[in-house]
């Protein structure tokens, strides 16, 4: 019944001077000291002192780290479960205890406790419910009883303030936790049960069973305006009516999957990010200066699903593989999941500076709104390729701009797969502009399809039809 889990001297308690070196900061009769003791004894009995990380919350138990000779981490108000999971995922061998009061856990930290409990990662939560805010001076807690007077329910908690929140029941109702129990401290029998429950909560973690939660009904004589004995009776007689004691959930057969331990080997990392030492083949003999001296701007625009972004990405990849610089900015957000979809692409001899393409040299328009919107912005001497299968009217386009209507959708449909219309467009773009050699774009297409090799001949065919449609235009 003595334990070495408490520091020999509480040096963090006012530098351990005087009585504070061996006394807690708790008021006479407060339940926290007992819960601390039972936690310390359980850590001792299970031999896990070195592995234990205790998360101190905000509230009266904010200074848990004054006392427990374990790894200590102090959390922001309500966030202890998140901090606990940070520690647990950092070191799966750590035994992490989130020790929280009712304001911390049941009010400001509701999102964290509910999501962490449902996550089910093995940590142990000790929840001290004393039906009041202690540290701030006796305000109403989510667990304050109906009719109970507090600094913020001066005439007693009434229905306008909502009813007390039963956390153990709420947590036990989730599928994540493996063990949930509510205990109390008001007599010798309850204290024995409380101690066992706290120990069991830690065992659930040592045995990697999962998330455990012990709600401890506790006395706050100071803010109840009672002496310690009256407070014990109040918990026994009043609190237990609203917060019945007992086991709410226990699934002894549960086992949480093993948490990973990071690898820092080079090869798996390079494989995971698809980095390769193989330099791509080059086909270009120089920068396409016939289009622009140093930097060609392109816009590819259509409806979501037209493949404008994929085609843009293929151009960017092919250009970079040729040793040029290139950028691709997609329109992103809701419209990229349907609706309109625009891609701005630059291919630069050395470096892309302005990556947007408000006035492109080349426009590929897959639908009428795109052509209407961007057609007039194409620079003189530029090129427009549009899908003549779906666009009937061509808006006024600057003189000196080459305009190619190509039945992209029709060609793709004739090939049996409408989705390859963007590759038809790439073929047309290649033949009409000479931006990049055909081999260069085809290599990028083949690379993109390396996991779907069966699709390569169809795409090659689509590309060739695109080229042909412009040449015969």
């Amino acid at each position, binding site marked *: 019944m003595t334990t070495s889990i*408490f520091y*020999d*001297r509480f040096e963090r308690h006012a530098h*351990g001077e005087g*009585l504070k*070196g*061996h*006394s*807690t900061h708790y008021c*006479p*009769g*407060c339940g926290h000291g*007992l819960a601390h003791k039972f936690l*310390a004894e359980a850590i001792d009995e299970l031999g896990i*002192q*070195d*592995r*234990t990380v205790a998360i101190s919350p905000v509230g009266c138990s904010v200074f848990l780290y004054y006392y427990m*000779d374990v*790894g*200590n*981490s102090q959390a*922001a108000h309500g966030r202890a479960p*998140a*901090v606990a*999971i*940070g*520690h647990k*995922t*950092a*070191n799966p061998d*750590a*035994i992490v205890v989130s020790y929280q009061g009712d304001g911390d856990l049941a009010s400001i930290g509701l*999102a*964290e406790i509910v*999501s962490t409990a449902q996550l089910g990662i093995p940590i142990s939560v000790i929840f001290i419910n004393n039906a009041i805010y202690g540290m701030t001076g006796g305000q109403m807690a989510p667990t304050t009883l109906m009719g109970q007077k507090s600094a913020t329910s001066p005439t007693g908690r009434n229905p306008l303030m909502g009813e007390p929140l039963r956390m153990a029941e709420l947590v036990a109702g989730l599928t994540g936790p493996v063990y949930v129990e509510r205990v109390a401290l008001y*007599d*010798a029998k309850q204290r024995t049960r409380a101690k066992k429950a706290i120990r069991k909560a830690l065992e659930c973690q040592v045995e990697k069973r999962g998330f455990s939660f012990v709600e401890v009904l506790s006395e706050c004589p100071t803010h109840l305006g009672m002496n*310690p*004995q009256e407070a014990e009776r109040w918990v026994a007689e009043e609190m237990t009516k609203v917060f019945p004691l007992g086991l709410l959930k226990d699934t002894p057969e549960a086992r949480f999957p093993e948490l*990973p331990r990071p690898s*820092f080997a*080079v090869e*798996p*990392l390079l*494989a995971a*990010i698809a*980095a*390769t*030492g193989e330099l791509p083949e080059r086909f270009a003999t120089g920068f396409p200066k016939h289009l622009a001296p140093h930097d060609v701007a392109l816009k590819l625009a259509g409806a979501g699903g037209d493949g404008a972004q994929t085609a843009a990405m293929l151009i*960017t*990849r092919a250009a*970079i593989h040729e040793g040029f610089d*290139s*950028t691709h900015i997609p329109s*992103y*957000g809701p419209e990229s999941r349907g609706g309109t979809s625009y891609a701005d692409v630059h291919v630069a001899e050395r470096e892309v*500076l*302005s*990556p947007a393409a408000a006035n492109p040299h080349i426009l590929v328009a897959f639908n009428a709104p795109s052509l209407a919107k961007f057609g007039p912005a194409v620079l003189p001497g530029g090129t427009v390729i549009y899908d003549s299968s779906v666009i009937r009217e061509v808006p006024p386009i600057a003189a000196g701009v080459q305009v190619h209507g190509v039945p992209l959708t029709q060609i793709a449909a004739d090939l049996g797969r409408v989705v390859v219309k963007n590759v038809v467009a790439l073929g047309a773009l290649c033949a009409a502009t000479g931006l990049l050699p055909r081999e260069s774009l085809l290599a990028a297409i083949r690379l993109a399809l390396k996991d779907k090799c069966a699709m390569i001949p169809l795409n090659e065919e689509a590309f060739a039809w695109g080229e042909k449609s412009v040449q015969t235009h």
Partner: protein
Amino acid sequence: MTQTQAAKRPKPFVFPEFCKGCGRCIEVCPKECISFATEIHPQTGLIPIVLDLEACNGCGLCITACPEPYGLRPETPGADFELQDPEAMFGPRPTAAPEPVARPDRTVALPELAPMVIKGNYAAAIGALLAGCRHVYGYPITPSTEGAELMAKVLPQLDGVFLQAVSEVAAVNLMYGCGGAGLRAMTFTSSPGFSLMTEGLSYMIGAELPGVFVNLMRGGPGLGNIAPEQADIKQVCRGLGHGNTHAIVLAPATPQEMLDLTLLAFDLSIQYRNPVIVLGDGYLGQMTGRVTLPTRMVEPGMPEWAVAGDGEHRRNLICSIYLSDRDLEEHNRHLLAKYAEMTSREQRADLFYAGDAETLIVACNTPAQMAKGAVQELRQRGVRVGLFRPVTLWPFPIQKLLPLLPKVERIVVVEASPGQLEDELRLALSKASVYRPPLIESVRHYGGVLPSQSEIVAQVLAAQEVAS
């Protein structure tokens, strides 16, 4: 229970100065051995209990009932507890835990690799992986989400952890826990999400924890839109939660820098035990470009201060509480000294035709690329214009700017924000005692519109006309 066994069980004793007189022991004692003293204890101001152990059978219920760690205890067999004093009994040292020693990082050479063609978000994620980060906590938010998506795909292959948090508030606190355990944690977010993380950032800075935040700014205020903006500059440079907070802010301008600066961010974060912000605009997350991988990666060690959940680090504490005002003032002085060190050592800027510039454009992120294009265009016309691109927004690289100023007649600040970059510039000039700076003009856009190259060119030319 036999009489002999009962006699062997230790009886309780108590130092009255450690008794708060709650009386839990009194009511639990079956033999009525315990009562309240008749006088207030002079040291505590409380009425302790007194023991009359004639009838005590050593049942121990009183000891279990005592809430104080050093309250009622079993008496040591054979000891005369009247003569014992707390120091002697409980030991002079606060803990027997060892003094931890730092385990240094190891750098591992990478083979020569082909340039990658990837989005900025992916580039930042790869930078983090190469920096030894295997713990990513995040909440999806456009335009940063692909970073989390790549990590969710890649980390399981590297036995790392990607955890989708319940909110950005939880995400930053997961980072607090993981960073507190001495590991490299990061998140991807965008403006509204970053706002939610500032509470946790203040705690991380207070507790001196590392962690990297990639914030790809979008249009605001409020929900705004998802287009690129730069209006979080004020928040990251001046408003990282409550209290005396600062963090190094790195501002990439290309997908390549998304990788390079994320990698650097981890180094700086560990070095200074402080969060680091990689601040991009929405375009930088979404833009695909050429990214060359570095020649080395990091296998992280373990800092001595971590709460790693093992015996070696048991004595450590992660905490931002300093209850005494003197202690907290001292802690703030320590933080200020650290900020001063960052300010003197970590200023970074990229200069483009800045050496002889009479008009100096100041811009960062994607607008700096637009500005670079403008400088190139204007130089071809013979205009003496250059670009000063702060790579660190905090600390503002004033040391790199001061040598240029004698030739500079005008500064044009180009930004997608209502003057937040200009404010940083003006504050830095003022702190550097530049009381008569060059005329400062601006090209600004808001709400997701970026300044264009042609606008910048026009502004610089207009300034030239006025000057001539």
